[in-house]
């Protein structure tokens, strides 16, 4: 029952995002269709089908009522009819997305996972050893947290790339020597190129996890059941992990949604800094080129990914907190 409710919520959220995508170009000043047509026309005559799909996506004064437009829009979206990209002309938007998506999923997904695991572990330890010198790392992580992603990225680039020449300045993999494929050479090249971007994500978002977990640990450690566990003579490791951390991690998991939103936002810009061939880079290029079709398509995909991740985490939460199963 719980699960149905959650699924329902995410369906509503998806609809809201799709509707936003539909409504925003139509509500704001500026005429995206004309701009796009203008750009496309530079490349050659524009086919009526292209013009029609653009009008579907962004609105025009001529065809049908707003509800009819909405219906057509939904139909087009669900079949992947996102239009043609100006930036990557003549590639359809859906293809551009398909190429960029795996890079971002891998980078952001992996980096977020590492950050979560590391952050929670450090936070657990910091909370366990509360009142000792470890508490002094909190101000350090505070400062790190407040640093803008991209600024940190650029500084890292400056020192580790331009300065020491340790890591590559840009790109997803070594384009001259390897090509995409599931072989060792490509994968190791991809890892090498992905290291700095991933490091940026980890450094700038780990502070939040550490702090959140530490605070919850400190709070949980004053609970009676932790004292009972100690009184039972259980080993400190077991008390720290099974009794304290297990309960303390719950709010962090619940707050994952908010964190993910920030990580996604930050990684957009970070991809641009590193010219990393992912969704974020494409998104920003689209913005700078007024490539509205690509931008809209990417926005939907980003939203879909975030919603999907949140749904997974939400369901996971129901499993790990038995108390939620009792509440209706």
């Amino acid at each position, binding site marked *: 029952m719980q699960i149905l409710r959650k699924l329902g919520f995410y369906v509503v959220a998806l609809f809201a995002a799709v509707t936003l995508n539909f409504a925003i170009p139509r509500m704001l000043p500026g005429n995206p269709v004309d701009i796009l047509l203008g750009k496309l026309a530079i490349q050659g005559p524009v086919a009526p089908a292209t013009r029609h799909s653009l009008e579907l996506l962004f609105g025009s004064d001529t065809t049908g009522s707003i509800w009819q437009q909405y219906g057509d829009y939904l139909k087009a979206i669900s079949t992947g009819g996102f239009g043609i990209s100006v930036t990557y002309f003549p590639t359809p938007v859906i293809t551009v997305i398909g190429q960029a998506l795996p890079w971002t999923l891998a980078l952001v997904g992996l980096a977020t996972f590492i950050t979560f695991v590391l952050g929670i572990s450090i936070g657990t330890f910091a909370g366990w050893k509360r009142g000792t010198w470890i508490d002094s790392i909190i101000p350090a992580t505070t400062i790190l947290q407040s640093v803008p992603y991209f600024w940190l990225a650029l500084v890292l680039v400056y020192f580790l790339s331009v300065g020491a020449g340790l890591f590559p300045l840009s790109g997803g993999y070594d384009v001259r020597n390897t090509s995409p494929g599931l072989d060792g050479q490509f994968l190791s090249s991809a890892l090498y190129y992905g290291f700095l971007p991933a490091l940026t994500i980890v450094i700038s978002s780990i502070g939040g996890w550490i702090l959140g977990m530490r605070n919850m640990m400190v709070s949980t450690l004053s609970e009676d059941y932790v004292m009972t566990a100690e009184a039972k*003579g259980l080993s400190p490791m077991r008390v720290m992990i099974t009794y304290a951390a297990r309960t303390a991690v719950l709010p962090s998991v619940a707050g994952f949604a908010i964190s993910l939103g920030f990580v996604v936002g930050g990684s957009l810009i970070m991809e641009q800094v590193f010219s990393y061939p992912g969704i974020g880079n494409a998104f920003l290029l689209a913005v700078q080129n007024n490539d509205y079709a690509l931008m809209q398509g990417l926005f939907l995909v980003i939203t879909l990914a975030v919603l999907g991740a949140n749904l997974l985490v939400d369901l996971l939460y129901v499993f790990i907190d038995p108390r939620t199963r009792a509440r209706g």
Partner: protein
Amino acid sequence: MNATSSLLTVSNMTVDYLGERTVHAVKDVSIELGRGEILGLAGESGCGKSTFAYAINQLLRPPAMITGGTVVFHDQGGEDIDVLALENKALRRYRWDKVSMVFQGAMNSLNPVMSVGAQMSDVFRTHRPEMNRSQRRDRSVELLELVSVDANRFGSYAHELSGGMRQRVMIAMALALGPQLMIMDEPTTALDVVVQRGILQEIMRLRTELNFAVIFITHDLPMLLEISDRIAIMRAGEIVESGTAEDIFFAAQHPYTRTLLNSFPSLTGERGDFIRSGASLGSVEV
């Protein structure tokens, strides 16, 4: 009381809460507990009885600190254990095996995200590593049934049990390793009186069967008069009077003890007697 029948000797226990203003929570308290004896520790809130109980087991946390005294446990095997000197592994081995505790308010004493059975098995996993999984489960179920909790509650979570049931589970857990002493800190305060009676009966029955000593901490003096062999009255960190239950009831020496005794309305006598006759606390000089 001669040495071989004495179970626990606490001498000159002093506990302070450090801070801007140091609070002396327990001042120079000594008790002698016999094997299988029920010692009641009574007093108002804040008199230091819980602090004392935690101190005996080294369960105090900063800013509370033991600033003086010794605790000697006379093990039935003949050995004398200096409890306050125990550390790490030795302390963990001692805990629950020789002395176990039942805390106030079992709602919070049970881990909310672990099943009740898992928490019971935990004890065996740590203290009886030779037991395998099904042995642990069987023994846990045995204990649950001992306190009249149904065996199929093994997989339940704390929030799925009633208050009385949770407290019984706590007691079952406390009995797991066959301790020689059980310290109970207000075990029935949070329960309604009918359930309270059931729990008390349970405790008394188990004690007759298994013969462990009990330090029973509560503010409910009449309850202690019912069940204790000896009673100690605590006030502001000190024991002001101690003696057998009969002595306390019939011939209380200390004015505070008398005040405490008179503070409970009786089920017999004239209506209004209690309110009219009780001496105001302000007139007691201690």
